[in-house]
């Protein structure tokens, strides 16, 4: 069995040229393959091992850490390991969600990179049998004064819009941050949320000897096969420049695939054995993982794979990352029903192989076997345990908190509002259709977004969050804060946080300091997740986010979903009625290291991160949720970047009302980023009840007013801000910078 086709390297040439190293296999991994097969792997086999054993597919480096995630409670119907995680939301329904990163593709090709990121995460959701109901994003870019960064921002925003709007799933929320560490390595994480009847649950498994593997959706081209990693002249006459690593998305086609898949799940659940989307390492990983999970083997005839380009080799067919493709496993003899359903929607649906019981992964091409390897071995890359070391920067940090310069309070406030990380992102997210499907209750611009569950009183709250600066100063505590902040956003709508998906964006794990950050971040996420009872049910890992040896900040994006039992209790951040009393919940301390004001005034972040009080966090959240469920609050908003002053202003702008605030705090505390805080407004009629409920946790700040003047009296002075003028700075700063 040493077939050599299309001028591919012979097994001996593969061995001697060590081409496998270019493809990412180490010497010892290659040797392991030789030992296990008891012969030299041929070209195609070497290629599929390199695909399956890449970090991106196998998680061989991150798995020892990922295993530590806490992912079980009574709600969990499906934890990590499938396309997406699933939680019980009662009434026989379930919510399905997951996040995915498309960092590198978005740097190379911002529009298509971001667009196909949306397409990919949606396939993860509907391949579970769930109807996608919302998309969120989490984005990091360099600073906007750099022209290339602006180009990337434009492309990424247009790409998310281009795909999400066309397929008709609302992009309801997200977050965007800017820091120089991301200029050579932007982060594009997307999260999708779906809804399903528990009865319709599908998993990606290939069970049952003789059952058919059906390929549906787009034809396969050379998309995503990295031309650079080929010694192209050796096996093809085409020029490398004609090959493209760029994946182009077709949201129109995916809409057809999505609708047909959901129709198939509804109509033919009795004959569908498994469904899996084709993501990283395309046909290869989807087919081999489905069989491995079921403990079966699989044989594919590659000549039957629908092809967009001519003369594709087995290697290319297996490794292609063409978009909008799915695999179905269907009971033997029942295939026609599925094929007809897809053809009715003008989609390709072709039987390309079958399930076997020999535990082998066998590929045939032109009537010859071009690969024959044990599936278990193929799908289980040798784990690597990597060394960790506490980053040196953490060992010598100042314990003293930064002291902001607030000599000109008004100017400081205006400058802070103009910081891209603080300023409104509305000029960007207005390109996203946030309302299609007509279920969006809270649109982007508040804390969490809220999507109703049609036909019930329920709604789902969702948010993405992480402040990576905090993690840079303390990966463990910073990760705790990320989960806490996500939960505060959920709680501010009135919902109960129920689960987490994550996107772990880090530098190279081969650097012991980065590996340590990853480990600490997971530990921090777990610590708060357990207290909140929000298991981590799905996620994504993106490593090697570095340019020129400079890693990004450790950036574990937290995607959180919450459940609101009665949508009529939904609460938003905007002030509602003149005369309502404004309270701050939680204590304000000297919390400036890692803050937005430190970044603004010193150009960098530095010093030991301020503390996080788990008990205070839980009690603040409990108070807000209770107050909302008793309908005591007119508005609720959590405090995050920029602190109290930013939260107050946002509640004013959204509510188109002003405030008159008196606080005993000194000026600098307006900018403190102490965790576990909210501002709420309470109608006069509820003040007594609220104060009784809150006790010491809430402090009266003042009241809502209807003039243009926002009045602020601190321990030392009084200032007045014009709402219109201030709002303009908040609203327009991003577009001013983008147009620069």
């Amino acid at each position, binding site marked *: 069995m040493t077939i050599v086709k299309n001028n591919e390297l012979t097994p001996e040439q593969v061995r001697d040229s060590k081409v496998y190293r270019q493809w990412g296999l180490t010497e010892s991994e290659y040797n392991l393959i030789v030992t296990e097969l008891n012969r030299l792997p041929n070209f195609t086999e070497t290629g599929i091992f390199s695909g399956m054993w890449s970090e991106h597919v196998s998680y061989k480096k991150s798995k020892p850490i990922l295993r530590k995630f806490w992912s079980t409670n009574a709600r969990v119907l499906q934890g990590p390991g499938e396309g997406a995680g699933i939680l019980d939301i009662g009434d026989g329904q379930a919510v399905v969600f997951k996040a995915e990163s498309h960092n590198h593709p978005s740097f190379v090709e911002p529009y298509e990179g971001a667009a196909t990121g949306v397409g990919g995460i949606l396939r993860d959701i509907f391949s579970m049998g769930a109807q996608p109901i919302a998309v969120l994003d989490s984005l990091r870019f360099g600073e906007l004064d750099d022209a290339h960064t602006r180009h990337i921002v434009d492309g990424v925003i247009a790409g998310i819009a281009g795909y999400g*709007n*066309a397929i008709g799933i609302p992009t309801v929320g997200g977050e965007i941050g800017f820091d120089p560490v991301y200029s050579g390595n932007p982060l594009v994480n997307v999260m999708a949320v779906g809804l399903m009847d528990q009865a319709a649950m599908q998993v990606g498994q290939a069970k049952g000897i003789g059952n058919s593997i059906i390929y549906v959706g787009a034809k396969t081209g050379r998309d995503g096969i990295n031309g650079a990693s080929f010694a192209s002249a050796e096996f093809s006459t085409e020029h490398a420049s004609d090959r493209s690593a760029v994946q182009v998305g077709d949201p*129109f086609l995916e*809409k057809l695939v999505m609708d047909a898949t959901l129709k198939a799940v509804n109509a033919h659940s009795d004959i569908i054995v498994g469904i899996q989307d084709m993501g990283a390492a395309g046909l290869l990983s989807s087919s081999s993982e489905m069989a491995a999970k079921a403990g079966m083997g699989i044989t594919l005839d590659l000549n039957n794979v629908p092809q967009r380009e001519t003369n594709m080799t087995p290697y290319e067919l297996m490794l292609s990352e063409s978009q909008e493709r799915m695999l179905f496993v269907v009971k033997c003899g029942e295939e026609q029903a599925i094929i007809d359903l897809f053809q009715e929607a003008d989609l390709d649906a072709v039987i390309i192989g079958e399930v076997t019981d020999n535990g082998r992964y066998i590929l045939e091409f032109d009537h010859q076997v071009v690969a024959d390897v044990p599936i278990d071995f193929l799908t289980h890359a040798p784990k690597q345990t990597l060394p960790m070391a506490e980053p040196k920067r953490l060992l010598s940090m100042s314990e003293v908190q930064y002291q902001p310069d607030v000599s000109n309070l008004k100017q400081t406030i205006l400058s802070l509002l103009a910081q891209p990380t603080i300023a409104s992102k509305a000029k960007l997210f207005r390109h996203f259709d946030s*309302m*299609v499907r*007509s279920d969006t209750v809270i*649109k982007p611009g508040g804390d969490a977004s809220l999507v109703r569950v049609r036909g019930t009183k329920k709604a789902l709250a969702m948010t993405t969050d992480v402040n990576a600066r905090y993690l840079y100063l303390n990966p463990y505590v910073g990760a705790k804060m990320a989960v806490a902040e996500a939960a505060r956003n959920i709680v501010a709508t009135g919902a109960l946080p129920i689960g987490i998906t994550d996107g772990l964006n880090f530098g190279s794990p081969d650097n012991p300091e980065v590996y340590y950050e990853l480990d600490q971040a997971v530990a921090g996420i777990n610590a708060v997740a357990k207290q909140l009872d929000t298991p981590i049910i799905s996620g994504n890992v993106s490593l090697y986010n570095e340019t020129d040896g400079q890693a990004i900040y450790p950036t574990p994006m937290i995607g959180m979903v919450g459940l609101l039992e009665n949508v009529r209790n939904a609460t938003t951040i905007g002030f509602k009625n003149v005369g309502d009393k404004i309270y701050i919940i939680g204590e304000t301390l000297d919390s400036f290291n890692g803050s937005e004001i430190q970044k603004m005034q010193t150009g960098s972040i530095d010093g030991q991160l301020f503390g996080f009080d788990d008990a205070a966090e839980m009690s603040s959240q409990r108070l807000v949720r209770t107050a909302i469920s008793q309908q005591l609050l007119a508005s609720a908003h959590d405090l995050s970047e920029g602190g109290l002053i930013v939260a107050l202003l946002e509640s004013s702008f959204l509510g188109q009302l002003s405030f008159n605030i008196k606080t005993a705090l000194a000026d600098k505390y307006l900018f403190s980023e102490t965790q576990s805080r909210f501002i709420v407004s309470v109608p006069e009629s509820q003040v007594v009840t609220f104060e009784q409920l809150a006790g010491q946790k809430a402090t009266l700040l003042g009241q809502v007013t209807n003039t243009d003047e926002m009045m602020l009296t601190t321990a030392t002075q009084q200032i007045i801000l014009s709402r219109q003028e201030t709002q303009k700075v908040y609203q327009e700063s991003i577009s001013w910078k983008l147009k620069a």
Partner: protein
Amino acid sequence: MKAAVISFPGSNCDFDMLYALQDFGVDAQIVSAKQTALTDFDAIFLPGGFSYGDYLRTGAIARFSPIMSAVTQAANAGKLIVGICNGFQILTEAGLLPGQLLVNATPGFICDEVALSIANHETAYTNAYEMSESIVVPIAHGEGNYFADDDTLARLEANNQIVFRYVNNPNGSVHDIAGIMNERGNIFGMMPHPERAIDEVTGNIDGQNFFKSILSSILTNV
């Protein structure tokens, strides 16, 4: 009243429209664009979305769908034809309404809620609105920039065929046009989405009177 909501490949507001009609008690159903008959229906809705991916031009390919001859027949028979967003784009491409929807004056997709003034209160689409009312309705489009030549515009104005105008024009439409009807008044198209503004829970009910208007006019015609 029986209503059809046409589902083109790539339509994505078809169910929003269906649910909206059902909320108002209409006996509505989705009809695939592959169908060829619409004789059973009193009113036909072309929903928003990206029919055929908006490839080539918005609405350009959808207008050649099998269902479109039936839509034309129904239009000629005087039945109500309502196109929202992509539906409006399809109706103009098909020549059932004059003009064309071009790329927004500032290119790019916009999702927002915008104020509309009601330019003609005596239509099947606006009769339930108060005289002085200005309403706020969601928009979500990249090609909503209504264009027609001067003669056509003069005719639209003279015949009161302009039904809705933008208060602050978001997309460059000539004469601030947000929605128009044909001379006979039975074919109507608009870019904004009244079907997204009918439920208190989602924060806007300014679209309710749009549906009430259609219902009352159909009932009085029957």
